[in-house]
């Protein structure tokens, strides 16, 4: 079954094509405008990084949330206007936006200035439908949206972002390829005695090199090569009972705490994500430290491959999330082969997990109502767990196409497991 998974993935590579960033921005802006029209929204005020990126083309900065919120760019989209307003410092010349000074919406003085600018570019808001994703305390104190009929902007953005344009898919594929290259370069470092931080540091260092190789040279967070998640190399317990206590009674992952030292025979679940022009990758594998996988461990992997082949066999436009869940369960003796606090699959884009979410606690009715469509990104991450043996977890990123799906990324080996 492993060999079959390898063949299936190799048969459906992502279409080759250069990324046209300007076209991508135009198409996203048009989609956002269409959603605003559909919801009768006249003005959208966007603060969440990926939302600003979608509306304006300014990629998210790969920095800590505290820097991201204070120094954040803000986008204002007014229905009928042919370009967004972008409030921020050092906006590159390539972006087709109305430029304004940085907003500083965390500060009372910034929020007051934001209210004035909103009135200037959009007119009085009272009585109009205004979409917003988040308000800072300062914005609430300043009454930035007083009198407006406030709509949740995440619904508009969610709908616009649910399917990707070819350029968006190409960005994800590029991020995934770079992510895979960097992980391939550091896998040999995950040996007995190594700490998580050593391997993570080598991975992050490799990203700096890849960034340079690509000729970008702009630095992490400047739109390419930025690291989006503290690299996860989590040695897993062999039984659920030996791990952290959980509200689900299942295994805890990813905890993101501590700096474990790897020991021979550890099953290590690895998970990393970087960005290209703001678009996320998602790399997941299970590594074995210092030795080849045992026979029971190989059986976990074999079962994982069976689940993947079964789900990919079903995946295509018109198929529901429920269909995917049932295919996965059928290949796993009827049991759900994924973590109960997560999903069988999630979308990927400007956020590292976004719609479509398949197999979550939103429940079977939600899954059955979620219809796959061309342009959706599906990150499959089944988990096979056998208490006392341990677990196998890996991820593959695919996109739904007109006639099925294609594989985003370069086709990374599963070593030390073999197909």
């Amino acid at each position, binding site marked *: 079954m492993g060999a079959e998974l390898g063949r299936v993935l190799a048969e459906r590579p992502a279409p080759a094509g250069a990324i046209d960033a300007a076209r991508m921005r135009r198409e996203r802006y048009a989609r956002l405008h269409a959603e605003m029209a559909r919801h009768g929204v006249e003005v959208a005020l966007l603060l969440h990084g*990926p939302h600003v990126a979608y509306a304006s083309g300014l990629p*998210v*900065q790969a*920095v*800590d*949330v*505290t*820097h991201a919120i*204070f120094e*954040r760019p803000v986008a204002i989209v007014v229905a009928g206007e042919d370009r967004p307003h972008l409030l921020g410092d050092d906006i590159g010349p390539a972006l087709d936006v109305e430029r304004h000074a940085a907003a*500083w919406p*965390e*500060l*009372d003085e910034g929020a007051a200035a934001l209210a004035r600018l909103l009135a200037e570019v959009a007119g009085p808001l009272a009585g109009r439908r205004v979409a*917003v*994703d*988040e*308000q*800072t*305390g300062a914005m*609430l*104190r300043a009454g930035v949206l007083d009198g407006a009929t406030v*709509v949740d*902007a*995440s619904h508009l953005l969610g709908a616009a972002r649910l399917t990707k344009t070819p350029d968006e898919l190409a960005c994800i594929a590029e991020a995934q390829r770079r992510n895979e290259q960097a992980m391939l370069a550091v896998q040999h470092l995950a040996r007995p005695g190594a*700490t998580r*931080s050593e391997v*993570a*540091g*080598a991975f*992050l260092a490799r990203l*700096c*090199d890849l960034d*340079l190789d690509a000729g970008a*040279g702009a630095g*992490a967070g400047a739109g390419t090569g*930025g690291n*989006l998640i*503290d*690299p*996860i190399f989590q040695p*897993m317990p062999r039984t659920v009972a030996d*791990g*952290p*206590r*959980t*509200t*689900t009674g299942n295994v*805890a992952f990813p*905890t*993101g*705490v*501590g*700096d*474990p030292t790897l*020991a021979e025979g550890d099953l290590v679940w690895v998970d990393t994500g970087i960005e290209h022009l703001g678009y996320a990758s998602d790399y997941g594998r299970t590594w074995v430290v210092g030795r080849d996988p045992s026979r029971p461990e190989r059986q976990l992997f074999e079962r994982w491959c069976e689940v993947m082949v079964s789900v990919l066999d079903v995946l295509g436009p018109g198929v529901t999330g429920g269909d995917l869940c049932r295919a996965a369960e059928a290949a796993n003796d009827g049991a759900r082969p994924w973590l109960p*606090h*997560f999903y069988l699959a999630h979308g990927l884009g400007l956020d590292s997990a976004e719609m479509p979410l398949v197999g*979550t*606690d939103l429940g079977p009715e939600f899954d059955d109502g979620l219809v796959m469509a061309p342009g959706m990104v599906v990150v499959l991450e089944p988990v096979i767990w056998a208490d006392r043996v341990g677990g196998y977890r890996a991820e593959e990123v695919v996109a739904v196409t007109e006639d099925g799906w294609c594989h985003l990324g370069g086709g990374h080996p599963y070593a030390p497991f073999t197909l």
Partner: protein
Amino acid sequence: MTTSATTPTTAGDAELRAARRDRVFAAMATTRLDVLVLGRRDSVAYATGARSLWTAGTRPFGAACVLVARPRSTHVLSTWDAGVPPEVPFGHLYGITWNPATMAASLAAIPGLPEARRLGVDALSPGFERAAHRLAPGAELVPADDVLRAARAVKLPAEVDRVRAAVAVAAAGVEAATAALAADATPGEARAAAVVAAAAQGVTVPSSAPVVQVVDRASSLIHVDIGLLVDGYEGGLGRTVALPGGGSDARSAGVVVAQRRLLDACRPTATARDLRAAAGGATRWMVRGSGMGFEPPVVTHTLGERAVVEQGMVLSVEVEVEGLRRRDLALVGADATHVF
């Protein structure tokens, strides 16, 4: 599999957590908040000590933590107890959910929340605003980011120790990048060297975007600025320096003097007016708070009208003079500003 050893910087964690928590509950009492709902990772870490996986950038607002004044209790969004300090009982964890109804049920089960009259938030989404009105029908929603920030502004002695440790890691990163550039590395290679140096001390999480630039090839001037988080506290250092063999640059002395003048102005009761006067010669400058990341106050030529420097604040003080930059974290003392 072995678990990590406790690093020196995490010694005394329980006392620090207790002191921070007391400050937050005291601030809730002063501002008559019955419940405080926190969405931001740094807010949650300050109030509870809970650690979680670092991810870059903003997250959509959600109730990541609920603090109830009476009976005093702390509830944390987490599916597992890893990273959750022992004073938060397992029964006070509510797991990750994608289902708003499940989240609402978890929050509704928190004793004291449905009866709240004043419910504070550190930010607000339209979705949580709707949910809050259903969960606590009698509650007034109050922006409480300012309450929390005021509680955090003056650092506890143990926090100062943590900042000092974090600055040491940042300095190691700056040193590694500078040494790499001196050995003819490219900026990308030098950035990688800084990353590896920090990782060697167990640190893999940035606060600000790392900067490694060749400013002026002719005089071998390079600029390096590293900001990172060590056990949740921010360390940072930025330097424009001439590489060996590049000769000295008169501008280097200028930026040192300009930063010293600004540092000296960061005295208790200093206002934006005082800092602007001291920063007169700088082409660009910023004074901002630092602690568990970027914090207020923020003072520049245009920001900080109502900012007042207080003793015990940690400030990031950066100036640029003729293209040369210099940034340090400093502790505001009664008589002097101490650079870490």
